[in-house]
């Protein structure tokens, strides 16, 4: 069992090192995610957000704009996750009212 776990860990590390050897250089503005245009000619999200966030919403903090507007359904999901967690404590831990009777 222990050998299996070590194997899993080694495999995990191996696949990550394998991947990292070919990742683009960090901080390089020419990376595809920072580039002016994607290779198929579609809009690159990061650039669009930087350039248009203020114009679209009059809000200087781009993270807030992306969070609250461009990707608002993500944020909604995030809120639902937290709501779920609250309900879970209610379900698992809350004293049931009927059991006492």
């Amino acid at each position: 069992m222990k050998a299996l776990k070590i194997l899993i860990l080694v495999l995990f590390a191996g696949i990550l090192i394998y991947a990292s050897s070919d990742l683009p250089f960090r901080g390089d503005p020419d990376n595809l995610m920072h580039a002016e245009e994607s290779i198929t000619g579609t809009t690159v999200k990061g650039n669009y957000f930087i350039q248009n966030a203020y114009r679209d919403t009059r809000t200087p903090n781009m993270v807030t704009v992306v969070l609250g507007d461009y990707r608002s359904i993500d944020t909604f999901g995030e809120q639902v996750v937290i709501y779920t967690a609250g309900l879970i404590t209610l379900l698992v831990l809350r004293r049931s009212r009927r059991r006492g009777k």
Partner: protein
Amino acid sequence: MLDFFFGHYAYWFVIILLCIGAYGILFKKNLIKKTIGLAILQISVVLYFVSIASKWDATVTVMDPDIPLDQVANYLNPLPHTLMLTAIVVGVATLGVAFTLLIAIYNRYETLDEEELIDKIQ
């Protein structure tokens, strides 16, 4: 070579942290330790996203009137930051659920050690 190092050292540290987290999940018998391992794993992924968002010589993601918006290289990429805000919240929610379950488990079996638990269940 030095370029490669500066371009990649952040990834290697992320990998080390990820492996520490995975080690905690896989090898630790105590359930709270497992939870700590899980937290480390999650935060390491956040670190990965934050580190890929960076650009050399760029400023933070709040608009500065002095820095023109059309030169995107001057601002960090806001998208991974946003994603990671969500991911952190999700991580906290997960931890909250894990804590809830831990309390429930302890209530029933008076132990959080995995081997003892398996003994007591059978």
